[in-house]
């Protein structure tokens, strides 16, 4: 299990990265933490003539709050995001999702931006980005642009980034008031890809649910936003029938089978864990 030959490039700025990608086109691939990419290369499921290493690009390591959003630079390590006080405070759903990603050694190297750009449909952070209506920042040959999370995830391992473009950061809206944030998943073992999982956030105001955000992962080619379930929860308030909310969230899913679970299992369990996640989130918000 050894990767095919390639040339590694070690740029130190985003502009250098963009220039290298422009120069090498299809033959090049940016590498962030590499925790998904390197195994695929070692298994020879993927090969590239050029790798553009983002690890030396320090401008991608920043975390900052600008008004009502938290910006996490693409190369911020997952372990940093898990424990960074600013992230824990401003985007608790991000921090809570991260312990579910692999193992701490993986999170020490893996990055927030890498996980989102890799767009594995079983991953936590894409679902968090989708649930929270995050904004993806990208820089490419035509300059920088912003992409709404709902427009970012196209299919398994495919995003709306165009050739030569890299993800440079993600902005998460900061929720205020009485909120609850929960990531719930069913995985065969601790740290495994979720058979099915949910990222959920609620904001309550007395017995009202003012805001609700629910996104499922492990249930299709992309993370899936459960808008109808959110509406039902807002309509029903803190005493909403959570099983019904869960069923609404799962209703239109059509997950596929794999060796670990049937699609039917994923769909049924999606309803269960949405209900459980919302219950926990409401409890947290009300405490």
């Amino acid at each position, binding site marked *: 299990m050894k990767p095919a030959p390639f040339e*590694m490039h070690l740029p130190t700025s985003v502009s250098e990265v963009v220039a290298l990608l422009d120069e090498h086109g299809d033959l090049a691939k940016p590498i962030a933490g590499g925790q998904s990419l*390197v195994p695929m290369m070692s298994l020879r499921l993927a090969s590239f003539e050029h790798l553009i290493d983002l690890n030396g690009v320090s401008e991608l390591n920043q975390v900052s709050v600008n008004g009502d959003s938290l910006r996490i630079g693409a190369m911020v390590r997952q372990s940093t995001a898990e424990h960074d006080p600013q992230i824990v405070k401003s985007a608790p759903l991000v921090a809570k999702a991260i312990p579910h990603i692999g193992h701490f050694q993986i999170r020490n190297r893996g990055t927030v931006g890498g996980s989102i750009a890799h767009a594995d449909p079983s991953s936590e952070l894409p679902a968090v980005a989708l649930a929270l209506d995050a904004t993806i920042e990208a820089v490419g040959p035509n300059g920088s642009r912003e992409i709404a999370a709902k427009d970012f995830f196209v299919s398994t391992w495919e995003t709306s980034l165009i050739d030569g473009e890299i993800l440079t950061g993600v902005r998460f809206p900061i929720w205020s008031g009485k909120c609850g944030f929960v990531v719930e998943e069913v995985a065969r073992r601790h740290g495994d890809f979720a058979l099915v999982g949910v990222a959920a956030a609620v904001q309550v105001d007395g017995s009202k649910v003012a805001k609700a955000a629910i996104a499922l992962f492990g249930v299709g080619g992309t993370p899936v936003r459960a808008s109808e379930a959110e509406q039902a929860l807002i309509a029903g308030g803190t005493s909403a029938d959570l099983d019904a909310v869960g069923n609404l969230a799962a209703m239109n899913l059509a997950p596929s089978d794999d060796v670990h679970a049937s699609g039917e299992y994923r769909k049924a369990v999606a309803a269960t864990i949405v209900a459980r996640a919302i219950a926990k989130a409401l409890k947290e918000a009300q405490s």
Partner: protein
Amino acid sequence: MSRNITLNINGAQHTVDVEDRMLLSDAIREKAGLTGTHVACEHGVCGACTILLDGEAVRSCLMFTVQAAGHEITTVEGIAPAPGELSVVQRAMQDNHGLQCGFCTPGIVTSLTAYLRDFPNASDDELKEALSGNLCRCTGYMGIINAARQAQKEIQGSAK
């Protein structure tokens, strides 16, 4: 493509010729001759190849050697305070029969060393979760978990 780089491993400089594609685990073993870092899956799951990169536990099979230049690498050979001695974690592993065949052991020693340094007050469940990134097929984990508990107590004690 290959290049000449210098790796800083356990405080010593190793200047090596490596292909760009060479995995760091292979360079540590074959170029620097430090065979304590074991390769057991090469896809980042088993944890046997775990090293410390600037003090943080990472999989050496999931990095390319050229990415490690300029960073400080610590392998299992660099954990004990002195030759012939054992670190707190290593001694706890021996005291609690935390190893049988020893193949997964280097990754457990490096991982626990870093984890307990950063999270000396981790709960028992958190300790077990921290160990979830290292597969062991011999011990059934009991000895390893008990070793982690003992090392944690010692580290907490010495911090007081």
